[in-house]
């Protein structure tokens, strides 16, 4: 036997194929699986939400509203009371089946949100920016619409589903869930955008019912749309759960026209 020195012609120890192609294929498959599962579980969430009556919800989440205990001086208290009256009147227009409690939170952020259990939280930052009562009323009606559509429960349910899914699918691999998380965020944001638009439309009707016109409806979005917010990258748009402010202003104007609502000038702000 003779020793024949030679190098192998082909490296059989490494499979063929481009790693980037493989990566995109696998990521696509994982994302597809995640989205399909999320959609199916989303239906189950919607199904379950219909079985939770407002009374049950209030009982379950009684403690949630307590996180925003009324604070501040007598000024805030007075403001809170007049806004409570306003929201109660709007609730009559919307036929909301909840006892709604309003809380003002000390926060610079221009935001308001619906907390499960019937609490609407309004940040003081929003009250600084939105000057007219009509503008504030639109925001309150928008949150009431979320209660009426049970959106707060749906999004809570979906968040739980997402978290559970990511945890089960990726196991202890925190890095993999970091890759997949943006995809699920995108899905969730798309769902919320539809819900937000629906709540805007309901809020517009409530505003017209209460005041007889829809003046001030777009005030908040006009404030948000001011250019100092535009520094962010364009990509964030797709992940934002609230459709871009300018788009919402346009949508509201179109809807007011098609419904024949009067876009009157704002009445003077009664809340200090």
């Amino acid at each position: 036997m003779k020793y024949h020195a030679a190098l192998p012609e082909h490296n059989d120890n490494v499979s063929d194929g481009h790693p980037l192609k493989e990566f995109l294929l696998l990521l696509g498959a994982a994302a597809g699986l995640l989205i399909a599962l999320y959609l199916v579980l989303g239906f189950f969430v919607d199904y379950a939400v219909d079985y939770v009556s407002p009374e049950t919800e209030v009982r379950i989440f009684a403690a949630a509203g307590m996180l925003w205990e009324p604070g501040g001086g007598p000024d805030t208290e007075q403001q809170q009371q007049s806004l409570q009256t306003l929201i109660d009147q709007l609730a009559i227009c919307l036929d909301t089946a909840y006892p709604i409690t309003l809380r003002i939170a000390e926060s610079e952020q221009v935001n308001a949100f619906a907390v499960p259990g019937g609490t609407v939280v309004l940040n003081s930052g929003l009250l600084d920016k939105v000057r007219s009562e009509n503008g504030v009323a639109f925001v309150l009606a928008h949150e009431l619409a979320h209660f009426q559509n049970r959106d707060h429960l749906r999004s809570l349910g979906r968040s739980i589903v997402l978290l559970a899914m990511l945890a089960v699918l990726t196991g202890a691999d925190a890095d993999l869930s970091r890759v997949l998380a943006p995809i699920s965020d995108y899905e969730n944001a798309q769902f919320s955008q539809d819900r937000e638009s629906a709540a805007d439309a309901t809020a517009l009707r409530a505003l017209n019912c209460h005041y007889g016109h829809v003046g001030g409806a777009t005030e908040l979005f006009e404030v948000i749309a001011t250019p100092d917010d535009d520094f962010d990258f364009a990509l964030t748009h797709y992940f934002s759960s609230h459709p871009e402010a300018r788009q919402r202003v346009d949508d509201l104007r179109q809807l007011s026209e098609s419904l024949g609502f009067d876009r009157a000038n704002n009445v003077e702000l009664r809340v200090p």
Partner: protein
Amino acid sequence: MLELYILLALLALGFFVGQYLEKQHYRSINARESELVDLVTTSSKHPFGDIPVIIDRRLVQGSVVVSVDYFKRMLAALRNFFGGNVRAYETLVDRARREAVLRLKESCPDAKQIINLRIETSSIFKGAKDQIGSVEVLAYATALYY
């Protein structure tokens, strides 16, 4: 949002730098293997062919540690999910094995024959969470001088 950008940056860094380094490494491996191909190397316990009196024999070894990049790690994680050939790691261990043998050969340029070649692999950071994994390959053999 920031997290996503960091992630994309890490993936891009891992992919471009990792691919570049891997190509460079393979180029170097191929060139050196051609250079050293004539040094008789077997896994046999006995010398190959008719040889004169052995004047010296030595234990020689070569070892290397190669790390995965972020891109490979993600690719392997996705692979773990679906199953199949983990190509991302195949090139890693292939490079490590060949580099270890090359280093072994380079450590004894005057040897006439290398016998009893053995290769062992161990992973560093095994079981350590959130650590980039590395692989160590150790090649050892007996070099014969005659």
